[in-house]
């Protein structure tokens, strides 16, 4: 009796070992397929999407309901005070808007004169909710509740608070995965509008953790004209991001280790801590066509 059991358990052990090897091979093939052929899930994504996305949405809905109910108990005096402040701000903003409008009118006239088409076109956008964040603590990606069915495609830019948030890296039928610009493995080609210099902005877990900033490098600024506080926008040379989207403001700048180009940090405009609603630009930057239509002289 004991012998039989022993043999059985031994057989089982060998079976488990083989299964481990088989599953390891499956995983390695999966990683390899993703790296080399860009295969990513397929039907697995659809199944997982239909199971988990509704759950995540449900939990988020309950969470925000609780949060909102708790917020309702804010005292009246607080609200009144806030109202007073907002009124002041409103007056100021209206004033600014009027000036902006006048300037816009002037700008349009000048553009007409110079025969320039709009430099920063307004893109068609679709609103989406953030339903889940990365499960670990190493990377910064999140899931939104719009997918293939809403016309989302890999490579679309995602915005929030008037600034760049990230890029769609994977699409399921009812969800998509967005890698944010603060992710440690993310890079964006950017430029400073005042000088037009192109440089590289990369997400960084370390600086983000320490001071809520991301890093930039390779800024050629020979005349020292780029100052702290200047806005940084996406560059026309980027093949992934549309031109002219605000990324953030320069918070520090210094010479890099090679003493030729400058490095520093940027404070992003988007609030990555409390990301709830985002906008997805429903247009992928096409780089292939422009190459074809350019004269080949």
């Amino acid at each position, binding site marked *: 009796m004991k012998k039989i059991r022993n043999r059985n358990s031994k057989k089982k052990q060998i079976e*488990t070992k083989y299964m481990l090897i088989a599953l390891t091979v499956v*995983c390695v093939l999966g*990683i390899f397929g993703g790296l080399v052929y860009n295969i990513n899930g397929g039907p697995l994504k659809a199944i997982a999407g239909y199971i988990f996305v509704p759950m995540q949405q449900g*939990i988020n809905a309950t*969470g925000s309901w609780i949060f909102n109910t708790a917020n309702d108990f804010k005292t009246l005096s607080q609200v009144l005070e806030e109202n007073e402040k907002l009124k002041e701000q409103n007056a100021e903003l209206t004033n600014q808007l009027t000036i902006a409008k006048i300037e816009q009118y002037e700008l349009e006239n000048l553009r007409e004169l110079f025969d320039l088409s709009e430099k920063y076109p307004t893109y068609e956008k679709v609103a989406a909710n953030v*339903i889940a964040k*990365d*499960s670990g*603590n190493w990377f910064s990606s999140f899931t939104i509740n719009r997918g293939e069915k809403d016309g989302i495609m890999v490579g679309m830019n995602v915005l929030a608070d008037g600034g760049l948030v990230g890029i769609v890296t994977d699409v399921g039928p009812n969800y998509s995965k967005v890698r944010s610009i603060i992710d440690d493995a993310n890079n964006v080609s950017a430029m400073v509008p005042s000088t037009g210099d192109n440089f590289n902005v990369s997400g960084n877990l370390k600086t983000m953790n320490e001071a809520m900033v991301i890093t930039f490098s390779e800024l050629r600024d020979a005349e020292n004209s780029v100052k702290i506080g200047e806005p940084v926008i996406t560059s026309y040379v980027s093949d992934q991001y549309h031109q002219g989207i605000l990324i953030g403001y320069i918070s520090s700048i210094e010479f890099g280790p090679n003493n030729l180009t400058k490095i520093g940090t940027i404070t992003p405009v988007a609030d990555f801590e409390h990301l709830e609603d985002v906008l997805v630009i429903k247009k992928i930057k096409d780089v292939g066509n422009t190459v074809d239509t350019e004269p080949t002289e």
Partner: protein
Amino acid sequence: MLRKIVLFFIISICFVLQTTTLQSLSFANITPNLLIIVVASFGLMRGKKEGMFIGFFSGLIIDIFCGFYLGIYALLYMYVGYSAGFLQKRFYPEDIKFPLLIIAASDLNLNLIIYLVMFLTRSRYDFGFYFTNIILPELVYTTIVTIFFYLILLKINQKLEAYEKRRAIKFDL
């Protein structure tokens, strides 16, 4: 069959909690790793095979929603479950210190490998920073959560085993 359904629910609930609620309950941007607790405890309680499968599926879900390439986290979590299964012989339901130690070690291992594979290879050399700001806080937070969460998992497993025993007797008759 019941075991599979229950396990599926445990994994789903943990994954959903980890990606939604726990993100807003995080201290200093660090969230505890519930799935590693599930994978390591079941490996410890039930052996290599079950630990391996639970690890594989938990990792696969993470891969689909948060990973870069399908298979990285599946591979890591699978080996965590499998190696926890090696210690099944030393598992006693009354003792909580040993599982606590194993779960903590699993979390530490997992994060060290993630650092080596995904950060060191991209020339992020400041290990001290990542250790004190990411790995250690997650370890502490996960261990604290484990004290409560492990007892729940233990109870669920005991209930399942009792149910399986009853069924086995029924079929023998």
